[in-house]
């Protein structure tokens, strides 16, 4: 057991570090990161420039095959770059979904012409991609998507609505899961298309979140025409294509978000105990809770080291990595809640000018409920752990053997 890189990994890490030092600013505080909107045009410009530099230096598509402009390295090198990148203020976020999920799907299912057209431009940051799966009536049950595509000559005509689309407002293209045959079972009537987000009939509207911000969008499709050569996989095989996209979601390493145990510990030293004398840090109940947070945060970090070890030996990560979000989203909720409650009545004030650490705990408190839902709800992730890791049988399904159009939808 050791925590050291192999010679090859160490060399790569040094190379990554040198690149990042040359091209990125030092990391900013969590509160500033949280307060920064991804909607600014300047940020997007900087992000595109950074992605181009990454591509030129060989740090884009680290695991992708060389024929697709990648570097053909095992997943561990991608993790190493991610670790180093996280130490800087690197504007990489706008590309996470496109390069992490969409393009691997395009590479797996696209024709030669499609790959020629799209892969290099995505990798160099010239074009940004988003993923259009969730719908108002298809969240956890995303195979219930009903956005409709009807064949018209060589075109598909798309009508319907997608929701919770991260980055739709700055994306150039998206992979779009559509219903092409409502007369067969739900999973068998789906098709995956590539959509031009600037095409006529595509209407992107920001969602006003419960937290007050607008990080996601809804996307409306009205008679949007898509050429059949922009289909990924066969017509009716869209669910199999979507599963490949979702599998790649696991490889996009999910970190924590919001103030962590170290930040609440800092806060606790100066905050007073809610129930008596001394500081919050001296409060026994707080210390016991803090220990639980430490154990879970360190446990998650160390579990990732175990995954890295497996990756280092050339293995692919399985659904085990789903534990991360189950741990982190709840922990984010608990830590922010504890900090706010420790303030007693004053805790209700979320004005950054008056609240501790510029209101970061309050912001985290309001964002955490979303994190428990995004990217698979806690409940869906637990189903995945139970079924794919522990091997428990699938739930009894009410949609087997029934054509999609005849399924009950509660409305």
């Amino acid at each position: 057991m050791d925590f050291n890189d192999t010679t090859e990994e160490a060399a790569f890490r040094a190379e990554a570090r040198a690149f990042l030092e040359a091209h990125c600013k030092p990391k900013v505080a969590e509160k500033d990161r949280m307060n920064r909107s991804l909607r600014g045009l300047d940020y997007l410009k900087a992000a595109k420039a950074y992605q181009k530099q990454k591509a030129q230096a060989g740090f884009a598509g680290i695991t992708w095959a060389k024929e697709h402009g990648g570097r053909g390295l095992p997943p561990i090198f991608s993790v190493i770059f991610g670790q180093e990148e996280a130490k800087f203020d690197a504007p990489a976020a706008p590309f996470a979904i496109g390069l992490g999920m969409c393009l691997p799907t395009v590479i797996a299912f696209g024709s030669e012409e499609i790959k020629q057209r799209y892969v290099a431009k995505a990798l160099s940051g010239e074009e940004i991609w988003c993923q259009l799966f969730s719908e108002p009536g298809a969240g956890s049950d995303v195979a219930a998507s009903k956005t409709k595509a009807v064949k018209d000559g060589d075109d598909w005509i798309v009508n319907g609505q997608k929701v919770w689309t991260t980055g739709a407002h700055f994306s150039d293209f998206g992979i779009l899961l559509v219903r092409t045959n409502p007369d067969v079972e739900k999973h068998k009537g789906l098709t995956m298309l590539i959509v031009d987000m600037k095409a006529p009939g595509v209407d992107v509207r920001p969602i006003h979140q419960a937290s007050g911000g607008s990080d996601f969008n809804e996307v409306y499709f009205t008679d949007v025409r898509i050429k059949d050569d922009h289909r990924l996989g066969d017509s009716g095989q869209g669910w199999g294509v979507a599963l490949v996209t979702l599998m790649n979601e696991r490889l996009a390493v999910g970190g924590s978000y919001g103030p962590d145990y170290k930040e609440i510990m800092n806060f606790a030293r100066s905050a007073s105990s809610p129930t008596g004398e001394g500081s919050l840090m001296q409060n026994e109940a707080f210390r016991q809770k803090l220990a639980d947070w430490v154990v879970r945060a360190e446990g998650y970090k160390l579990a990732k080291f175990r995954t890295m070890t497996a990756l280092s030996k050339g293995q692919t990560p399985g659904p085990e990595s789903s534990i991360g979000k189950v741990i982190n989203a709840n922990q984010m909720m608990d830590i922010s809640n504890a900090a706010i409650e420790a303030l007693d009545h004053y805790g209700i004030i979320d004005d950054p000018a008056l609240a501790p650490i510029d209101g970061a705990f309050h912001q985290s408190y309001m964002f955490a409920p979303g994190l428990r839902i995004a990217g698979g709800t806690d409940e869906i992730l637990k189903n995945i752990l139970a079924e794919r890791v522990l091997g428990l049988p699938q739930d009894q399904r009410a949609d087997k053997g029934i054509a999609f159009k005849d399924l009950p939808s509660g409305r």
Partner: protein
Amino acid sequence: MNFDFSDDQKSLKDQARKFLADKAGAKVTRRVLDNAEVSYDEGLWRGVAEMGWLGAAIPEAHGGLGLGHLELCVLAEELGRAVAPVPFSSTVYFFAEAFMLAGSEAQKAALLPKLAAGEIIGCFASSEGPGAPTPSNIQARFDGAVLNGAKIPVPDGDCASHVVVVAKEGAGVSLALVELDQPGVTRTTLKTLDPTRGHAKLEFKNAKAERIGAAGQGWELAEAVLDRAAVLIAFEQVGGSQACLEMATEYAKSRYAFSRPIGSFQAIKHKLADMYVAIEVARSNAYYGAWALSTEAAELPFAAAASRAAASDAFYMCAKENIQTHGGMGFTWDVDCHLYFRRAKLLALQAGSPAVWKEKLVRRLEQRNAA
């Protein structure tokens, strides 16, 4: 990054699992559970000694296998999984570690070879009553030659031949070695939540004793022994937790209610997924503890506390939810769920309750931040 056990260590684990599947398991544990006259299984103990496990981390010069602590962690996980009814932890994690840490060359030469061969059983006595022992509340008194006082409860104190006692000496605390087979020692077997492991009250009246380590250094030494033992106990807890999860999973696949396997219900799935997450957190912390223990890293006190806090919570949760998953059957004497539920409590309380280790964890985090 190589945060995993080596192939050799994994094959030792497989070997241990096979051996214990054959020589231990519920049937052996139940022989001790159902017989108030015995506190451990002698046949299994002899087998464990013959395998060389008692001396896994003891240097070859002192009669051990000289493998190391990572190997010992692997064995601990398997012993925990098997709910093994043997005084392994007292003898190896506490007694042997105390001597390897603080024993004189003469003491090591006299005791460790016998311990590795299974000729002596060691134990470690700290508690004297309800609540956690502290340097100030300890009453047992050592004067450099004899020991007076009482210790309760002492794990495996009813079957051990030797004990290391945490006792006052002058104004400080020292560690004292006492041979239990002598007129100055009275042992009373205790009734406990886990009868598959013996516990005793030990009373000392001018019992002959010798010091281990320097006078007045006993508390620091005891803490260091506890840290080492904490990592090893955490592995037993992880092994026990994993066994509970596997039992519950198997049952959930085969037990039908409402004409379907109960494991197809989300209420059961989510329970088992929560157990899985708790075990992953505990296992990962325990691996860190194993690394710190095997490399004598400065992080050991922090890692030991984290290992123990995570593993105690995980085993408690897995043991109780294993019963719940089994429904009424889980509450019968004949189904093995309660063996784990009992052992989970024993391991959570031995050498400090979860609250004690959580407080240690936070204190050590503060010290680390201050440094």
